[in-house]
């Protein structure tokens, strides 16, 4: 609230203490305060002196007054008695019963249920917590005992829905528990035990929120005000919004000036004190969805993952055999399928009766060859319902086996499955981990190209692995080069050209000259970023990383861990791609699955963001950065010139258009 000025101010006489929060009666626009526990004061806006306003002295101590929108104020006494204000004012000295004996009221809240006010309050006695629900007009009272636990409830909040009160308790172990209390209960049973369930743990990636107060926002969101304590760091006071459905922290706002630990919420606005001012924050809860919960709602960068199998991506010599057999499946699969099923009739019947899970369980201890055979057969049943789930199980089985037996790694089998089935990361989360361990770059490349949902952590792990592997190692691997083949100018090509020239009979002097020029030229070129800083295999692998989906917020922290040398290499490669892109007027790289200019730019920005300080310090990055800057600046100038031309052309077109219209003409019009 920027314009904070009091609209009214009233004070009690010296020596008197206001003992419960002042409320406003919405129907009469009166204010109600209690001072010295028993003295009730009621006044209106125009009253100035609090001493001269209506006064009523009660017979018992008031705990709190609750004002309800259309039910009038309700007074809760410290002894647990409840009266509506109207009833109370008829006879201020009436006796108030004591329900809670020597329990102490810790918290209370009031609702309207239909036409009647409902009051809920919690009490404590010797570490036991009790909850009372009182319907004021029906005079019914229910007492519940809160299920005991080591930690203690610190704060409560409740809301009413479908004849149930949902009570949320914030416990000292930094968790929020939920308990349901039915409103319609006829039997006046003595003290039921209230069972509760864990709703939310207030911890996120190592830091724990010590909540002090909290409110419910909608069915999936709660807001908690508290201290966010990261181990080893000073705790910060934060206002946080949590999604209870997906157990995620939706957003948080730091409050460095400190608060009173209290938080109120009315009509989609938070109210709390921050430092010395009252702060109001408007919030908006969108419908809870998984995408929103994991922060991927706006990410549209996911590449088009083909929903059908792309047979062209195969074709490596090593896989030729399997390639052919697979290719035959969609073309002339019918006879073969029937053949196979006939041959395996017995097993099939057996398998049908067995569930996939059971089968996999049976296979757990089978030998490697039997295991693979069985899995192949299982997979061949293409018409099987929930084939995806089955494949997921199969993959899990294989990866489990890989983990258990470090020597076991059926690379070609895995590649085959990944290439022919529409898998996703979440179906087989361990697959990429295993592949990373085994440094199976081929499999990783395919996974990166095909999985739409790789977590940023894994994407980063792949990137780091790719950058750290030596070119020599990569040359021996089988990497799909289709994304780089069309634009990369590999160094050895140049060398070949040179040797050819020599063979064609140039003299030594010339050769020497050319050698020198070559050296200078090459260094120059490298400086300008025109020669590819990485080998084709590495380039292809990096391209796969560039094209995978990610969200910046989650990737950035990981990217910061990238060693400086690798970061520079990666940036050099990105710069190279950028230059290559810009060579073409349509700024696209030739070839299949080549990264787009936007992907390259995004990664470049991310990388520079993540390693800004390092880049500034590193001497070898200096030249690269200044090159990059010069290139980008030139491009910006170029595009702004284009922009100007476009503006002028448009203006011209407008003028031309206007010229067409003459002020007078004689035309022929035919009406039929």
């Amino acid at each position, binding site marked *: 609230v920027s314009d904070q000025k009091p609209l009214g101010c009233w004070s009690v006489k010296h020596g008197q203490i206001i003992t419960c929060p002042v409320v406003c009666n919405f129907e009469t626009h009166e204010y109600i305060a209690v001072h010295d526990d028993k003295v009730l004061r009621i006044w209106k806006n125009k009253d100035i002196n609090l001493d001269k306003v209506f006064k009523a002295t009660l017979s018992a101590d008031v705990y709190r007054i609750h004002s309800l929108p259309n039910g009038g104020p309700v007074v809760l006494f410290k002894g647990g008695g409840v009266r509506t204000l109207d009833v109370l004012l008829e006879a201020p000295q009436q006796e108030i019963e004591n329900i809670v004996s020597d329990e102490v009221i810790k918290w209370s809240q009031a609702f309207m249920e239909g036409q009647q006010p409902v009051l809920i309050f919690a009490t404590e006695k010797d570490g036991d917590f009790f909850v009372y629900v009182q319907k004021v007009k029906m005079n019914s009272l229910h007492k519940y005992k809160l299920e005991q636990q080591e930690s203690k409830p610190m704060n409560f909040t409740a809301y009413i829905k479908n004849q149930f009160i949902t009570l949320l308790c914030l416990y000292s172990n930094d968790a929020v528990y939920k308990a349901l209390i039915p409103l319609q209960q006829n039997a006046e049973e003595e003290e039921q035990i209230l069972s509760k369930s864990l709703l939310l743990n207030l911890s996120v990636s190592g830091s724990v929120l010590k909540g002090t107060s909290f409110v419910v926002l909608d069915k999936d969101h709660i807001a908690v005000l508290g201290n966010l304590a990261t181990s080893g760091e000073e705790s910060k006071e934060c206002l946080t919004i949590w999604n209870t459905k997906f157990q995620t922290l939706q957003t948080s706002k730091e409050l460095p000036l400190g608060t009173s630990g209290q938080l109120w919420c009315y009509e989609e606005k938070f109210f709390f004190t921050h430092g010395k001012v009252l702060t109001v924050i408007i919030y908006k809860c969108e419908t809870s969805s998984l995408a929103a919960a994991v922060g991927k709602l706006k990410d549209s960068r996911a590449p088009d993952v083909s929903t059908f199998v792309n047979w062209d991506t195969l074709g490596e010599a090593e896989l030729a055999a399997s390639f052919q057999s697979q290719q035959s499946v969609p073309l002339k699969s019918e006879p073969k399928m029937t053949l196979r099923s006939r041959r395996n009739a017995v097993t099939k019947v057996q398998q049908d009766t067995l569930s996939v899970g059971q089968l996999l369980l049976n296979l757990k201890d089978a030998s490697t060859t039997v295991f693979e055979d069985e899995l192949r057969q299982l997979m061949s049943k293409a018409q099987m319902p929930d084939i995806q789930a089955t494949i997921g199980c199969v993959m899990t089985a294989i990866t489990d086996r890989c983990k258990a037996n470090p020597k076991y790694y059926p690379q070609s089998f895995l590649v085959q499955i990944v290439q022919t089935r529409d898998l996703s990361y979440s179906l087989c989360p361990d697959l990429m981990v295993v592949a990373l361990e085994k440094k199976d770059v081929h499999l990783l490349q395919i996974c990166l190209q095909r999985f739409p949902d790789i977590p940023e952590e894994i994407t980063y792990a792949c990137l780091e692995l790719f950058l750290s592997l030596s070119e020599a190692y990569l040359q021996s691997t089988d990497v799909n080069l289709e994304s780089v083949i069309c634009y990369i100018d590999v160094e050895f090509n140049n060398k070949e050209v040179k040797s050819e020239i020599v063979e064609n009979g140039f003299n030594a002097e010339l050769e020497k000259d050319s050698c020198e020029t070559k050296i200078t030229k090459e260094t120059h070129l490298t400086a300008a970023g025109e020669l590819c800083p990485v080998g084709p295999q590495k380039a292809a692998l990096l391209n796969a990383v560039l094209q995978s989906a990610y969200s910046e917020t989650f990737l950035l922290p990981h990217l910061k861990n990238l060693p400086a040398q690798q970061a520079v290499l990666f940036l050099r490669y990105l710069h190279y791609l950028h230059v290559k892109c810009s060579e073409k007027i349509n700024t696209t790289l030739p070839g299949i699955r080549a990264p787009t200019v936007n992907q390259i730019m995004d990664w470049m920005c991310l990388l520079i963001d993540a390693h800004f300080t390092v880049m500034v310090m590193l001497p070898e990055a200096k030249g690269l950065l200044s090159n990059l800057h010069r290139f980008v600046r030139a491009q910006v100038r170029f595009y702004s010139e284009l922009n100007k031309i476009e503006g002028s052309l*448009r203006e011209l077109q407008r003028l031309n258009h206007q010229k067409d*219209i003459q002020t*007078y003409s*004689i035309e022929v019009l*035919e009406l*039929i």
Partner: protein
Amino acid sequence: MGEFEVHRVRFFALVPAGVRCLACLPRAARLALARTDGAVEVYNFSANYFQEKVIPGHEARSVEALCWAAGERLFGAGLSGEIIEYDLAGLRVSRCVDGGGGPIWSMAANSSGTQLAIGCEDGSVKLFQVVPGGIQFERNLDRRKGRILCLSWHPSDTHIAAGSIDVLRVLDVCSGQTVKRIMVNYHVQKVKRECIVWSIAFLSNGTVVTSDSFGRVQFWDWEQGTLQESHTVSTSAALSLAVSEKEDSIIVGTSSGATYQFQLLPVKMGSLEKRWVRTKPFQHHTHDVRAVAHSSTALISGGLDAQLVIRPLMEKMQKKGYDAVLRKFTFPHRRLVSCARKARLLLFQFSQHLELWRLGSTEETGKDGQVLPLCRMPEHLLQLKSKGPEHIYCSCVSPCGSWVAYSTASRFHLYQVQYEGNSISVKKVPKVPKLLLPAYQLQFSTNSDSLFVASARGSVHVLQLLEPGGCKHLHTFRPPSGSPEAVYLLASSADGHWLAAVGGDWTIHIYNLKCFKHHCTVPMYSCAVTALAIHPVTNNLVIAYSDQQLFEFSIPEKQYTAWSRMVQNCGLHKVWLERDSPITHITFNPKKPSHILLHDVYMFCVIDKSLPLPDNSALLMNQSTLKQLPETARHRQLHAFKICKKFQPLLFADLLDENCLVMVERPVLDFKTQLPLPIQQKKFGT
């Protein structure tokens, strides 16, 4: 049906004046509009938004505020410092009262319409009592420094909110004192620019709504003097605002041409707390939106680009109909062009002068769509400037081209034009008869020997034109039962036998010119007449109404013709009825008696009565389809309505001779370039 040689005229340099203020008549379907040239117009919503009345402007009489009071009396006030009452039956100013506080910037009537408050240059707010036959000064309210730019009465009539520069004030009507003074700039520190409160509205719950030059719409609690809500709608000024009668919706106009709707909506489904939310933005204007109004079913805005936009609120609509369509009016619903058929001249009427042009010619012929080479260019023959501050009401050129007449509020002028080779001489006819002025419509007879002058109280004067350069008052027709309303449309028959006249009460009287007698009255129809003409051969009167109905009335037989009855029985095509601009001119082809030629702003149409009417399943605008069909296949597709939409916006169309048409267009872009530049808005890449 045939080919026409169309003279496509775009040199009528009309620049319609911008809309300055709007006033909705409470609980009635009328809208008063004032333009920057001082003209006042009244639109009738129940007559399909027809521009029913026009009171032309006056050089010295700008109108800054309009309001309805005491029933249906219309008052205006402006920088001349006078409060003006308009005579809506006689279409003129009925009386002026000096406000006594210098230029008047704002005026508002209280809810009962018994008092007018004006805000003056000297910072005073003055109250006037509306009494029968005029207004009376009542008293001054508290005067402070700073001109009062806007005013609003509290619905209970106890307080007035007044907006000025940097400040808004709330005045108590009983005591006359300023009871609250709120600095609107309090929240913007370090801003040295002054903040002009352009518009203000006082809601019944005590909220004062302002729109200001910072582009803000602000809601104030006047009793506390606190700002409740502030919405910045524009980077330029928010010039105007209007509140619906239920106080649940507000329309705001800005100087960038955008209008915004605010609605009072519950913050949650079913919640009692309501908040003003900016709901709908509209960009119908290119220039400042100086005036907005909020009727019960529509948002109305008027801009300096001369457009009046009526944007219906679909949630208030029960069914699809006239009311449910967005309407934009840029041009008047009446003719500003007259044509001398025989002499091939066009007379253009501007607010303070007339232009006479001779059309060009060609000797070639061609095919449909072809532009023919000109052998003679059009020629600007004459410019007649009207003397004095009054604007021109109406004008006409005779069919032979040798007479030009026009009228202002107080004077009637007749000129004789003589053409001798390439030179032209204009002679003013001296001693024109003293007539009841102003004249609202002038019409020469087909043989150019008499002039009909439409006048107040339903009267039509007949003047005889005499050679050389004289005229004589022959007769004055009056409706037999009398009428307070002025005649606004005339039509005479080619044989000089009949004259039809329509007044503001929409009754059509037919007079016999041979024996100077009232002949008959066309049966009353409940809508405004937008155009009428008498057929040269059959003497049938063709009438176009603002609800797009067409009637044909036989004058000799005093009854509707068989074709007219057939049209009423079959009904006109749905698309025809859904058009939103009225027919402004009807004419005929003497060689083809079955044809009726008519036009509105967006189309030209020839109705061939010999062909069947199109039913709703047929395509109404079928010309392009027909052109693609082979000749043999066409006749099955033919229907009576031959519509051409090539010429837009069409201000005038007439038949010169059998195969020759003239179309006067005024492309919107042409006059937009003559308007003052709108606020520059950065467009990407320029």
